């Protein structure tokens, strides 16, 4: 073990060492917790930063989530987007969140963000109305996510909206939405018209999620052993 010479001397040197040690430890201990978190928007020019902060304040006042707004700003910074473009994107996001809130009311932040994403890609606010009725133990994240993707891939917004809303009302689960999305996506990649791909697949899609334990009515074929 290394011992510095002044550490071995009695009296005031020990006190001096103790004082220095305590001071340093205090600084070190206070450092991480007392240090200011770096401003994530510091890389924005002053005008853009001010504009984004105003938008964030507006969201707070309206009790809208600020995380998706900040995320949109940080995404722009990471991708070296122009300050004006970043402000524009954050402002639009606030608008989508407002619209989604006005239709859906009080839903969890992540669902509100996903709903805003659907409006962003071209769905009409009224088409969100089907999701206003809340279902216990059901989460509409998957529905919103695949809905937004289908529109992004070229499925007409009306077709995508009515298909997703119908499935939701019929009680489809996440796996059903995923299966539909995967099939349509596959057809589109093979060259099928996006609208036609959705129409074809929605016909094959089960109208109701297989959650019912009631046996189907009508004659049943005997099981072969």
């Amino acid at each position: 073990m290394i011992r510095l010479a002044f550490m071995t001397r009695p009296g005031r040197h020990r006190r001096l060492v103790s004082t220095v040690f305590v001071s340093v430890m205090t600084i070190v201990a206070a450092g991480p917790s007392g240090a200011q978190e770096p401003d994530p928007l510091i890389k924005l020019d002053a005008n853009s930063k001010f504009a984004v902060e105003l938008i964030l304040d507006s969201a707070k006042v309206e009790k809208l989530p600020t995380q998706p707004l900040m995320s949109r700003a940080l995404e722009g910074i990471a991708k070296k987007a122009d300050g004006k473009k970043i402000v524009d994107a954050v402002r639009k996001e606030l608008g989508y969140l407002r619209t989604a809130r006005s239709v859906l009311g009080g839903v969890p932040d992540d669902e509100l963000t996903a709903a805003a994403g659907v409006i962003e890609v071209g769905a009409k606010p009224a088409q969100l109305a089907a999701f206003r009725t809340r279902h216990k133990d059901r989460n509409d994240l998957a529905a919103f996510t695949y809905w937004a993707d289908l529109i992004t891939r070229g499925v007409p917004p009306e077709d995508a909206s009515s298909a997703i809303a119908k499935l939701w009302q019929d009680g489809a689960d996440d796996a059903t939405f995923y299966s539909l999305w995967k099939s349509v996506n596959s057809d589109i990649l093979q060259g099928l018209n996006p609208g036609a791909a959705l129409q074809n697949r929605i016909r094959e899609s089960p109208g109701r999620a297989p959650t019912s334990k009631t046996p189907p009515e009508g004659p049943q074929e005997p099981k072969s052993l």
Partner: protein
Amino acid sequence: MNERKVAKLVMTLALLVPAPRGLAAQLVSKVEAGQYSVSDGVLPLSAIRFAPTIQFELPRATFMARGAALLSDQQLQLADGIVSGTFTSPTVYGVRAEMIGNASRALDDRSLGTDQVDVQTRVHVLFHQHGGLWFGGGVARPWRVAVISSADVTDAGLWAKVGNAAAKFGGATMTATFTNFSFNKIASVHDTGSASLSCASIPSTMSSTSGGIRALFSEVSSGGACERQSRFGDLEGTLHWEWSTVELTAQTGYRFGDSYDVTADSRRWSSATATIWLTDRVAFVGGGGRQPALPLRGLPSRTFGMAGLELAFLPISKGAVPVSLPHAILVKSFEVRPGATGTQKIVIHVGGVETVDVMGDFSDWSPLTLVRRGRDLWELSVPVSPGMHRINVRVDGGPWMAPPGLPTVHGGYGGDVGLMIVGEDRSGH
């Protein structure tokens, strides 16, 4: 300033240096084990070779330690060991600088070894992402060999890449290099025809050596050797071809220099190695050929053959070829699996690239570098809260793109982003 004040100042400053936040470091390793046969008259004719490697990577620096041991006649013999550090600058307008430092020891019998420290800088220039060139220079300082001065090393190279591992006929990278060595070495007074012999400047610090130069040192002891300025250049061509799970590397070279510096058995050489990936982490490796003498290491030329297994995977050396590839088609798959509490393991399959990064709202859009776990397997565990997250991926510092297999939306900043759903107790798709 007295000793106490200096000590206090150093202690205080050392404690005040903040730990790097979000250090994107990764540790990778591999082990090779196999049968190795060689005919150089010094190493055992046939042995089992173990060659563990460990590498620590930072965004702009890589530190590596590697060793090799031979098991022959039930005795384990160290063959060589190296520690290495590489620092790279960001690529600006297709130009990248690199600094490499190595310290190594090579043992060509059970007791004697040669040491070397070398430092080299390189400048890489990329052309259209399918080719480029580099040039550089450095200094190598060997010990306990016939070379008794620092060696000036200059090198330049060209590379070109066609196709990629996923293409119908795979991808090939062709590299041509020329490396020039200039140094002073011990020569026998019986060497004639050399204009640069000096018989008055043999240093007295030489103590021991190995291999085929013992005779020379005997001459030194008896005043029968001279110091000689030596120079030779290696022209080398390499072809590396990858297709599916197969990799082939063939190398050939020619050494320029007069007959006093280049022995006949090191004038030409060639070798080939095949790697067949059995799984993401295990490969069969086989090969053979001839290697030239390495005067700076005191190693004679040798003919070798080897067959063995490679476990795990070491990333492509950043200093080797600054490969930068077209990006969009390379990412084969993307998965998110539940990890330890509160974390998700991001798993990406993409081959033939140096780095894979992701970023998203879960990282406040700061890039996170994945760790290479297999031939084309990249992983990273990262805290991600349940819910929907926007995510991008990139390879080799290229453009950000949506990972395959995820729903996507237009990002608003040019390019798509993926939408990743993370459940309470399950992964996203």
